[in-house]
């Protein structure tokens, strides 16, 4: 009879442990479907949020300029009609980079030197910081601090002794509210506000003068009509008044205005009986069912556009110099502009937070991860509990606690990997499809492949980590039990 001295059980190599875990996972993968499904759903959710937000942001970045273009005419009409608000002036001065066309414009209109403008910049930047601060306060606090005033009026109010007293005492009580700069500096700024205010007034006076000058030149003609001549005499008038209008801008302005005119012309034709009837006959519907979007869709092809212009001619409608090519182009640009409008609306929240997807989305993702972690923990707990007998058997055969924990952690991580992969794919397909429907042609020019790849890896990683963390407690408990207790629990 041989006799063995009791020693410490040797530890298995990590390669061997991994091998055993993989064998187990391969066999159990289908049984672990519930766990995997939970992880898939959770990670699909995360990936969906990430993908959508990343696409939105990429689209927003790529169309920002185009959206600016969309509003070019409106912007110029506004500039040529009223002087800027104090806040706008401060913001633009604050972010101006010298030499700045805005600076030149202000200087030409108000007669101030460029150096004087440059000297105002630090103060303007400070003012913008304070304005941001007040803007971000909730209404209740704002009301307590400065009463019912907004924007630069706040500074005026704080100049009064009562206003400042109310502000400084209330601010001391609000522990969570922090001024962007020290209070003393703010006080100094308020004392010097008169100077900045006077500067703004000078700027606005200059703008008012320039606007008057422009209006005198055009008389009763609406600004939008006058803008048709932005690359000609009217452009000269505008420049003479001091506005910074470069030839390129003028050219696109003219084009834009003309397109607006032509668009209006086409939109007006739906009210002409003959045109409506012709379109109805062509589409084989009742004249009452003809709509403007239908006509726009129709004239996107050159043949149809030619036909439509023919109809206009038959009905003796002025064609405003439209050729089939330009009509088709306008129709296409219109469709594009509508997409841009959708994009503008959809991408308003983009920026900030995790991977720049926006703070709101980050929170949403975070909270959903918490919920999913609970779901995964539950699934892992079940899967470990139903294997107590196996764990007990392994312990009878001489397995160490650490071995059992490691095997379960590896298994969980592998399930997380599979679930994460599936989830990332599902989330990507879902979000991609939705975004493709929303943004159509805008999507492909801006598709953020690299970032989405990172998001996918992130989802897979989160899935693995969540699954592993969720398996720690149950497997720790199972590993620590005496083998027979574990069997009894089952």
């Amino acid at each position: 009879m041989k006799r063995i001295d009791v020693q410490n059980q040797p530890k298995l190599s990590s390669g061997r442990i991994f091998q055993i875990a993989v064998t187990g996972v391969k066999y159990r993968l289908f049984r672990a479907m519930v766990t995997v499904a939970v992880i898939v759903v959770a990670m699909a959710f995360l990936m969906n949020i990430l993908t959508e937000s990343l696409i939105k942001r990429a689209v927003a970045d790529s169309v920002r300029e185009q959206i600016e273009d969309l509003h070019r005419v409106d912007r110029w009409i506004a500039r040529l009609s009223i002087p800027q608000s104090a806040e706008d002036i401060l913001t633009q001065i604050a972010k101006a980079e010298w030499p700045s066309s805005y600076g030149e414009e202000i200087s030409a209109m108000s007669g101030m030197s460029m150096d004087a403008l440059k000297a105002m910049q630090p103060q303007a930047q400070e003012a913008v910081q304070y304005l941001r601060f007040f803007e971000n306060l909730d209404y209740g606090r704002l009301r307590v601090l400065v009463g019912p005033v907004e924007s630069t009026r706040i500074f005026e109010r704080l100049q009064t002794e009562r206003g400042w007293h109310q502000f400084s005492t209330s601010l001391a009580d609000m522990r969570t509210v922090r001024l962007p700069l020290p209070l003393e500096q703010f006080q100094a700024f308020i004392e010097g506000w008169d100077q900045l205010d006077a500067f703004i007034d000078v700027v606005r006076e200059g703008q008012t003068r320039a606007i008057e000058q422009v209006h005198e030149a055009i008389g009763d003609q609406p600004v939008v009509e006058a803008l048709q001549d932005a690359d000609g005499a009217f452009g000269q008038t505008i420049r003479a008044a001091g506005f910074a209008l470069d030839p390129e801008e003028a050219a696109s302005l003219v084009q834009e205005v003309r397109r607006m005119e032509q668009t209006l012309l086409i939109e007006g034709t739906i009210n002409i009986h003959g045109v409506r009837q012709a379109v109805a006959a062509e589409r084989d519907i009742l004249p009452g069912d003809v709509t403007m979007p239908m006509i726009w869709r129709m004239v996107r092809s050159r043949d149809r556009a030619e036909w439509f212009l023919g109809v206009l001619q038959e009905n003796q409608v002025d064609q405003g110099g439209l050729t089939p090519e330009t009509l088709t182009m306008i129709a296409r640009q219109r469709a594009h502009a509508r997409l841009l409008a959708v994009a503008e609306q959809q991408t308003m929240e983009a920026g900030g937070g995790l991977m720049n997807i926006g703070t709101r989305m980050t929170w949403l993702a975070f909270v959903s991860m918490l919920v999913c972690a609970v779901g995964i923990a539950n699934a892992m707990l079940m899967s470990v509990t139903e294997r107590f007998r196996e764990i007990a058997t392994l312990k009878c055969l001489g397995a160490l606690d650490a071995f059992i924990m490691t095997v379960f952690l590896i298994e969980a991580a592998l399930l997380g990997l599979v679930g994460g992969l599936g989830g990332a794919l599902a989330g990507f397909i879902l979000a991609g499809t939705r975004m493709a429907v929303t943004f159509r042609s805008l999507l492909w020019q801006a598709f953020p492949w690299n970032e989405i790849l990172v998001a996918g890896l992130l989802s897979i990683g989160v899935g693995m980590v969540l699954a592993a963390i969720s398996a720690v407690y149950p497997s720790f408990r199972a590993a620590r039990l005496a083998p027979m207790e574990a069997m009894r629990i089952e």
Partner: protein
Amino acid sequence: MTDTPAHMPLSEPEDVVSRRVIIRAVGMQKVYQRGEEITYALRSIDVEVYTGEFIVVMGPSGSGKSTFFNMIGALDSPSKGRVFIDEVDVAQLTAEELAFLRCRKIGYIFQSYNLIQYMTALENVTTPMAFGGVMPDEARKRGMDLLDLVGLSDRWFHRPIEMSGGQQQRVAIARALANQPSILLCDEPTANLDHHTGDEILAILQRLNKERGVTVICATHDHRMMNICDRLMWIRDGNIERIARRDEVEVEVGSIE
């Protein structure tokens, strides 16, 4: 059997001088507490098992038989008293040493086989070797020899679900023998098997006991076991009711059956 005196002298094997004690339980007690309710699974057990013995433990279900088993197999710790395996106090061992003991010293055979479902027969047999630090090639060779011993070497690649109960139990026996244990603990090894298959398992156990000198301790309701054992032990209500050599009870067999 009903009028067995409570304090009859313990029967010892005939050649007691030549044999060594391999398991000794002293005042072993196990109490389960659930809230206020206290259950005595074992009241006070003193027993000595000698090397190379084949002991059959009998008793109705709920008698504490399984608990007794787990105690002397170092699978559970007694509430009171001590268990020595090879003169080593089990309570003194660390978790690593316990694992070592379970791995090499004792082979376990369960009523429900408890094979690892995702492993093949061979992998099941070689797992305890892996835990014991045997290199994979060596383990595979030894595993095949053991499967050969139980007559299953041609089915080494089958998984438990692809095998009959008897085959699974034979794999379990091969696994229990993986690290050449000196003790084989069997908890109702034939309970889930038909008569013929049970006979095969018994034959294997008997052969191991006779040829390899493995100490076999077997809890069972199966009366066929009596024919191959050295000693019998009856447990009732957490106490050892009686221990007897086979030749002592053989005369009574008629009355038992």
